[in-house]
């Protein structure tokens, strides 16, 4: 299905006043009614600073209110607007149209996630696997009972994991992972990178517990180091490196 609707007249709305425009192809799919995904095309004006999310919202505002998209912060912090943009998983709010160097921009829902509708996908599996690896500090004492003093760390100890704590749970890494595409039980790069984040934290005492969780037939060993997770991470977390470092613990190279 392809159509090019005309600009709807709407009082109080101001479309971008630009001479440049792109064709925005939006994947439409409602699992309750549709048997297959289709695309709708819209001509959207843009400025050099216009993001893909802004273009989609422009479509929602002026052309088709029914396009389903999840978004919130618009500044690559909430991790809500992950989608496939011109074949690559990206955050729509963090991707400028001008940087794509294309007159046609295709947006699709993320791979390896069940589709709710159009561009919105279910995050249950990501949150379940994230929760499974116990993403919190495990230790018997607390900061409150130890003379109400915080647990101190040296800058070197902080360096061990700080990069991995930038994860915003956007799911782009899981969307890009080839193992996730076939193995429905795989923990996934997001959860594995977070497992490393806590295992490498000097304040944490739950290393053995956490390593046991990921040491199963659909755990860390199913990563084939394609590295696509790290390529698409918008926050520079580098899950592939985290997984390799975590393997160092499992193989006895790190303690």
């Amino acid at each position, binding site marked *: 299905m392809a159509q090019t609707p005309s600009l709807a007249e709407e009082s109080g709305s101001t479309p971008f006043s630009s001479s440049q425009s792109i064709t925005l192809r939006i994947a439409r799919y409602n699992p309750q009614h549709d048997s297959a995904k289709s695309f709708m095309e819209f001509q959207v004006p843009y400025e050099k600073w216009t993001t893909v999310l802004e273009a989609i919202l422009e479509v929602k505002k002026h052309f088709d209110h029914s396009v389903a998209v999840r978004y919130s912060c618009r500044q690559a912090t909430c991790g809500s607007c992950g989608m496939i943009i011109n074949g690559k998983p990206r955050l729509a709010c963090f991707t400028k149209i001008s940087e794509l160097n294309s007159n046609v921009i295709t947006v699709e829902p993320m791979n390896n996630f069940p589709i709710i509708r159009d561009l919105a996908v279910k995050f249950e599996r990501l949150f379940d696997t994230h929760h499974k690896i116990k993403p919190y500090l495990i230790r018997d004492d607390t900061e409150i009972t130890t003379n109400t003093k915080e647990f101190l760390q040296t800058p070197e100890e902080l360096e061990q994991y700080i990069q991995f704590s930038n994860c915003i749970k956007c799911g782009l890494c899981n969307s890009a992972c080839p*193992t996730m595409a*076939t*193995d*429905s*039980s*795989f923990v996934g790069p997001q959860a594995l990178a977070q497992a490393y984040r806590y295992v490498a934290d000097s304040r944490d005492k739950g290393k053995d517990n956490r390593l046991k969780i990921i*040491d*199963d*037939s*659909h*755990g860390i*060993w*199913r990563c084939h180091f394609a590295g696509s997770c790290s390529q698409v991470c918008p926050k520079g977390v580098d899950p592939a490196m985290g997984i390799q470092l975590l393997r160092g613990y*499992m*193989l006895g190279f790190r303690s």
Partner: protein
Amino acid sequence: MRESIIMKIHYGTALAAIALVAVHILMRLTQGFAESLEYDSVIANYKFLPYAGMLEIILILLSIHGFNGLRVILLELKQGRTYEKAVSYGCVAAMIALIAYGSRTIIMVNTGMT
């Protein structure tokens, strides 16, 4: 068995197999390929126990490594408790069968059954 132990065996068998297959190839270079595959030459190799022992070890290493690799591929293709158990036990059974069949040749030669 924990997956980490299985994968340590997987990596270990790969490294050991590389070393022993290299020795095997070097041994084969001592004579021409056509000559190497002649009946008498093959029987002589199997009767030379240190070399036959090395071939047996290569067979075991490659069987373990290969069938575990196959198990991993099959587990990634499809999931389910029954399927996964069938794949794991099936691969172990196939591995034992292949080792037994390969060992049978060496044993037959050395017991004069050829």
